[in-house]
């Protein structure tokens, strides 16, 4: 028949265009899966620092892949070369895709030149988690810190990323801050680029 479009059949799944994917995922499903991830890692380690490192490594893998996907899907295969560029990419685009909203705030550290902070009133991964008192300063947000580290590392901005609880006056629950400390070479390169 004339004028009827034919859907292109792809013989190889790698040739199919990347779809937008499902925009909505069940929060409960994710919460249970994440809870199981934390519990599984708890059985494998002896101390809290080790547990945080494992969660971070899990996040690192996610971050590296998310960067590839978002560069292709949202940014038209352009690469960020400036510090502020990659930071605002993480703060808005990555957060929007992963958590459904942009991060609450992005700040530059006052004490050190190489420190930046992304703050959030409550991380999505921590929504249903209450840390027992005997675990001290452990934060399941280490997973999110790992994601940020994965994105930054794969984009060419090596950094040390950690998640901290920051108590706020007048609020019962502390807010969470992701602290990003860039490596020396990043700052040197940034200074050279002017």
């Amino acid at each position, binding site marked *: 028949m004339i004028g009827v479009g034919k859907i292109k059949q792809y013989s190889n799944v790698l040739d199919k265009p990347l779809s937008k994917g499902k925009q909505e995922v069940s929060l409960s499903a994710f*919460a249970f899966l994440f809870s199981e991830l934390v519990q599984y890692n708890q059985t494998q380690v002896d101390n809290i620092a080790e547990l945080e490192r494992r969660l971070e490594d899990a996040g690192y893998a996610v971050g590296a892949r998310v960067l590839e996907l978002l560069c292709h899907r949202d940014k038209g295969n352009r690469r960020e070369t400036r510090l502020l560029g990659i930071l605002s990419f993480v703060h808005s685009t990555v957060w929007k895709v992963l958590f459904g909203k942009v991060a609450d705030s992005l700040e530059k550290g006052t004490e050190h030149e190489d420190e930046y902070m992304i703050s959030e009133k409550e991380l999505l991964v921590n929504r*249903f*988690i*209450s*840390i027992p008192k005997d675990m001290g300063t452990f934060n399941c947000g280490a997973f999110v810190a790992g994601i940020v580290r994965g994105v930054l590392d794969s984009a060419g901005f090596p950094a040390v990323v950690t998640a901290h609880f920051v108590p706020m006056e007048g609020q019962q629950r502390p807010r969470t801050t992701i602290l990003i400390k860039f490596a020396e070479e990043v700052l040197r390169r940034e200074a050279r680029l002017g």
Partner: protein
Amino acid sequence: MAAIYSLYIINKSGGLIFYKDYGSAGRMDTNDSLRVASLWHSMHAISQQLSPVAGCSGIELLEADTFDLHCFQSLTGTKFFVVCEPGTQHMEALLKVIYELYTDYVLKNPFYEMEMPIRCELFDINLSLTVQKERVALLGR
């Protein structure tokens, strides 16, 4: 006005996993609350056997002179029951809300062991908020 005296949550084997009292009337120490919880668990089970009709799901409401006891049993056998003033309205709905809080802040918490006493900060905070709202709503009517 109508008020809530206390809230109990018992696991499927009858052990008390959560107890909170909201008034000076009937405040109990730990051992007594444990005893009362397992007593109620047994009575609930016996009532299922006593029923003349098949498929009974156990006691839902106990009315006495000075208090009412509303009980909600989930599909998994966890029981939520609240002791309140006689004639308090909407306790069934409150128990369902508390069940939802339980599934959210207790079951999704990786540090909670199943059937163990509940020690989750978020659950306590949200439970207080809910009971507070309920109290305000009851006073308003």
